[in-house]
């Protein structure tokens, strides 16, 4: 078995406008997804929006530059993730297709396995 990270990307501008009812519905869908795939999910979280992010980069002087905001500015930002276990990419994609999403989609990345 291998592990894959499913990264959930969404347009934050659109996401900011969801009603509390929509939010409750999305949360419910994630709970159901989590129960349905409990046997392969190894972890997962929703993230606060990128306006809460702080980026830290080493600078040439040997110190750090700390800046407000996401590491890379993109229209669709990382909003959450699941860590799953799957035998191969097809299995991982089958799980990924069932991740509840709004205003975006998911990216599936294999975990680099250190031997």
């Amino acid at each position: 078995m291998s592990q894959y990270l499913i990264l959930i990307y969404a347009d934050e501008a659109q996401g900011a406008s969801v009603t509390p009812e929509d939010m409750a519905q999305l949360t419910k869908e994630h709970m159901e997804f989590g129960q349905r795939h409990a046997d392969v999910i190894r972890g997962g979280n929703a993230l606060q929006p990128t306006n809460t992010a702080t980026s830290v980069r080493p600078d040439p002087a040997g110190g750090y530059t700390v800046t407000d905001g996401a590491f890379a500015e993109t229209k669709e930002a990382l909003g959450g993730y699941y860590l799953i276990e799957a035998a191969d990419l097809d299995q991982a994609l089958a799980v990924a297709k069932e991740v509840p999403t709004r205003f975006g989609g998911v990216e599936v990345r294999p975990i680099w396995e250190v031997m």
Partner: protein
Amino acid sequence: MVDVHPTAAAVAAAVAGAHRREWAFVLAATVRVTRDLDLAEECVQDAYARALDTWGAAGIPARPGAWLTTVARRRALDLLRRDATARRALPLLVTDPALAAAPAGHEPAGYEPAGPGLGAPAEPEIADDRLRLVFTCCHPALGTDAQVALSLRLLCGLSTGEVARAFLVSEATMAARITRAKKKIAAARIPYRVPPRAELPGRVDAVLMVVHLLFSTGYAAPAGDELMREDLVERSLDLARMLRVLLPGRGEVAGLLALILLTDARRGARVDEAGRLILLADQDRARWDTAKIAEGSALVREALGQEPRGRFTLMAAIAAVHDEAPTFGDTDWPQIVGLYDLLMRRWPSPVVALNRAVAVGFADGPAQGLAALDALAASPELAGYGYLSASRADFLRRLGRTGEARLAYQEALLLTGNAVERDFLAARLDQLGS
């Protein structure tokens, strides 16, 4: 069984023939042993080289594919034993449990070692292996460019240089593309497997798209000095034939093979001695390949009997109507328009709409055709599409609207990258006079 004293030329021809027909078969059977694409390719290349060296003295085996498979697999087993520790660290292709149960380096179940030329690999198992290779090459997680490159390399056995020339990119670019694709197969664990039944229709469509892309790239080369790249057309035909053998019950597979045959049947009549383009209307139909037409027509009839009728089946049916008309004037245009209507429902695209409009022009007259074309002019996908301007130009010319026809030909010339097509448009422009 064995031709004992073949000439060097006969050996070379036999090896070339086996390369053309059996590469995918031999490679797929070897991947089963190695579970590593690069190692399998190396061993298969080695087996073909050994065939060239030894078939002269030992005779051409009755079953070259079986001989090559045996030699390639033995080579693979030798290398795996020799470098067992080094290779253990490499990621193996992910396969289904039945295949994975046989560890790399061990004979898989059902495989019986046999002497070169005498081997009889279990046919159904090997046929399945070719399908595994097909579905891995055309996995949707790979980019289209990568799928096409891998198919030519692994299924057709083209060298990286040959694949690069087919797509007019440098060998270094193509080598990087192929390496990247293989790396993704290993790192992301794209499985070496025939997809489960539920996923099969979508995955077969993806494979057919790759073969059709190869064919259309070869048939109307988007750039370059020649109208066609015959090597690509031939390879797409080989692949379509292989899929027909491996997936015999699928209508769309029959449909795509039919489409390629029925279109390619006109190859000999498409350009004149000077390499100039000849339109369907002006082609010498006596030069069409009647054997390909007969084979394609039979396949179309079979494919049309299966619901739902797919895109390639409907395109093949349109090609069949053209091919079966004794002269251009005899073309059953209303039937072609009807088939385009079905195709628009199945595969709505601006290019299909354009072809339908052209057919309307022949069924109902150039004024109706022009009206149908002008209804498409606003479609953003067709902006910059040379065939739209060329078709408009043709209808305007037939309506005697010379000034507008000239403008449309000039526009088409600006939008066309293929030298043969450009010459054709320039000649039409000349004929209009000033």
